């Protein structure tokens, strides 16, 4: 790559600065400069992209990273500008953020809260990152969000779907662009009623950890509101690879819908196993047996292959969306990387732009200014249609997609088809909803750090 930051000129410049610095040893206290953590020095600002690079979610992480790099390019005025052209806020000029060139550092969350925090800390303590973005699980998101709150930097949560991220564990310095389990339930319910009727008996298999539970709770609540009956809810260990012993009890349970509250490898395996037992060709209670996967991703669809045909689920974003922002983003991403973006890629891309835009509008990098600029911010043109960042819980509200595994995909990229775009009104809830920590959960105060 010939576009590099360290040109010969830059090298001379840095050595000159270093030389100058050597002559004047200074002793500085951390708090002495700007009133907030990692106030950008010089003419660059550093963002931290913390994504899984090893472990089962590595491919999702690398997709996020591609999108984040694209966003940085667009912010710096390189490439085709992407969604800066369609974004309704026009504060961004393509000259970096507040005139400072955007640089970034990357780290590996390993999809473990400890490792993710270590990596985020190294970005904050060593590289001077002022915002952390990315991730592919709710456990990691909550852990890193807590860290960013303590350290006084902004956290833009990547893929995190559990209610807790903007519920029980919400933090003033953290924002979520992804939708959540409650929204999945609320969006899916009308479609399920439409396609399967209101007289169904559901059997839940749920990954036995926090995200799985909140999703099961949400789906059970919204399907029971339809009139469905919940036959059984079974927790499966996270480490399970073979789900046959959880699938066979479904066969003769009298249930006619199987809901798989699984994600990633768990979902790929449980769905594949369910298909092996020929569940979709079964007739129960005089109805065709159906499978629902409330949370889909493109990578899961790819992993499960043909097994997803006809299976319903929900998504945060899909590249087949026809709005201007989406078309622009798919074009920029597709031309650069030769494939359409995944929904986690779009999430991270939108978040980097949103953060930059908030800094511009606030006129400062101070996290408290950024928080103020993002709270209650309404916009369009980043791919999801009209979107609101709610001030009360920092959850983003936008239309939710209900998708289905396509019967006859033409390529590897259209394996999922959009069934319905559920309007935002249908998935909105009160900030003190009991599934979101009720009245006790608070954002706390924004923390600018040092």
């Amino acid at each position, binding site marked *: 790559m010939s576009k590099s930051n360290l040109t010969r000129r830059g090298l001379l410049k840095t050595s000159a600065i270093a030389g100058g610095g050597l002559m004047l040893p200074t*002793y500085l206290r951390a708090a002495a400069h700007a009133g907030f953590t990692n106030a950008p020095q010089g003419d660059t600002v550093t963002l931290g992209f913390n994504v899984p690079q090893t472990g089962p979610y590595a491919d999702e992480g690398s997709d996020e990273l591609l999108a984040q790099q694209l966003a940085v390019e667009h912010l710096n005025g390189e490439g085709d500008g992407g969604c800066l052209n369609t974004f309704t806020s026009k504060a961004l000029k393509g000259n970096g953020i507040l005139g400072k060139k955007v640089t970034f550092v990357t*780290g590996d969350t390993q999809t*473990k809260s400890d490792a993710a925090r270590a990596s985020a800390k190294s970005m904050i303590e060593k590289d001077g990152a002022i915002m952390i973005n990315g991730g592919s699980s709710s456990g990691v998101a909550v852990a890193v969000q807590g*860290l960013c709150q303590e350290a006084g930097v902004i956290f833009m949560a990547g893929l995190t779907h559990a209610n807790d991220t903007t519920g029980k564990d919400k933090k003033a310095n953290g924002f979520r662009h992804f939708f959540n389990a409650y929204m999945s339930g609320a969006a899916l319910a009308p479609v399920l009623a439409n396609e399967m009727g209101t007289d169904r008996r559901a059997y839940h298999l749920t990954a036995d950890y926090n995200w799985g539970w909140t999703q099961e709770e949400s789906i059970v609540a919204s399907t029971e509101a339809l009139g469905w009956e919940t036959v059984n809810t079974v927790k499966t260990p996270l480490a399970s690879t073979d789900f046959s012993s959880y699938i066979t009890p479904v066969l003769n349970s009298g249930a006619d819908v199987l809901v798989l509250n699984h994600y990633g490898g768990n979902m790929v395996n449980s769905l594949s196993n369910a298909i092996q037992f020929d569940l979709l060709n079964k007739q129960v209670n005089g109805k065709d047996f159906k499978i629902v996967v409330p949370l889909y991703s493109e990578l899961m669809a790819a992993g499960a292959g043909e097994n997803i045909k006809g299976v319903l689920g929900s998504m945060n974003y899909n590249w087949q969306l026809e709005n201007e922002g989406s078309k622009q983003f798919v074009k920029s991403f597709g031309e650069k990387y030769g494939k359409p973006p995944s929904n986690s890629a779009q999430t991270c891309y939108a978040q980097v732009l949103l953060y930059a835009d908030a800094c511009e509008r606030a006129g400062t990098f101070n996290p408290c200014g950024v928080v103020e600029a993002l709270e209650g911010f309404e916009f369009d043109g980043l791919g999801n249609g009209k979107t609101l960042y709610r001030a009360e819980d920092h959850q983003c509200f936008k239309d939710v997609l209900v998708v289905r595994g396509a019967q006859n995909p033409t390529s590897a990229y259209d394996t999922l088809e959009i069934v319905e775009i559920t309007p935002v009104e249908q998935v909105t809830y009160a900030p003190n909803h009991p599934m979101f920590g009720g009245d*006790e959960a608070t954002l706390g105060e924004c923390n600018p750090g040092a």
Partner: protein
Amino acid sequence: MLGLTKKDFNLLLIVVALALLAPFILNPFPSSSGMAQFNAGYPDLMQKFVIFGIFAIGFNILFGLTGYLSFGHAAFLGVGSYSCVWMFKLLGYNVLPGILLSVLTSGIFAYLIGIVSLRRSGIYFSILTLAFAQMSFALAYSVLSNPKFNLTNGETGLQVYADDPQIFHSASAPDLPHLFGLSMRATEKLQIGGWEFQFNAGYYLCAIIMIVMFYLSIRIFRSPFGMMLRAIKSNNTRMNYTGLNARPYTLAAFVISGMYAGLAGGLLSAMDPLAGAERMQWTASGEVVLMTILGGAGTLIGPVLGSGLIKYFENIFSKINSTVLHNWFSFLPDGLEDLMVTLIYPFVGKGWHLTLGVMFMLIVIFLPGGLVEGGQRIKRLFTRKKASDTAEDETAKSTTPAE
């Protein structure tokens, strides 16, 4: 001095110097240079170095001396972490009660697992400890975090919430772990020229504890108790025939090393008040085994070196991305630059595991005694003349790695 031989005392002095001067030693490159990527002198990583150092020193007391290979030591680390965070939740953010409780609970936990597991030896012992640790992990991850009885907070990790009692928490104390008001996050920065050195309160607390623990481990190694443990390793059957019951000694070693692990876990929480269940997973137990063997099992300093090396790779190599590589090689012509990046890229960033794997293999193939043996070989190169009289001493010290 301090009841140590001259040689051991020198080793202790080296460890003290390394630990106290770490902010300088680990930051050899100016922060604006491309090589700054390799700097490790920031609070979090320095803390990890010494904390995992403590973990490995403790593990070595069991494995290096008795030869009992525990594959479940991460359970004690996890128990320590949880205890410490619970103290934060109940009492307040002062780290002292948390650390003390973590040592205590992990000691009890180690005792219970120890009396059962030590009924078997060899690989049967390893699998028993593994089984206990995996059970702890699975339960902590799911069952023990159900809403009715939330002991561990599962996947998210145990953390302090605003509505926790924290009965000793006063308004003047920081809202983060602190030692009588001194926040563990407090960092003094010293800028000299292009260099920036960070002195972190939490790090120095950990470093001092590590030095004390290291001293303790030397004393254990050189004590009659340590001799007894070695005897168990070299020939357990003969020990039995001489009428000595080895079990109490191995159990004591097991509990001591479990307490070291608990201390390390407590310190992890004290530095960063969140305890995740994956700290108990078998991969974490495996990691400390690898640290110890990599550094040199049965040697005093080896485990510390091994843990440092693994944590360094995890935190430094994983952060090198293609942009960084392009910056490094930007002085080369474009074609050559791309070639270099293509060649190196698989080994860094998302490929850091590969480098780690290759390094494991190279070290164990070429340095059977671990990093310590590497150090000795280098030393021997320089002091070839004296080789004959030191060689004997060296072999005695390096000891054969355990089975």
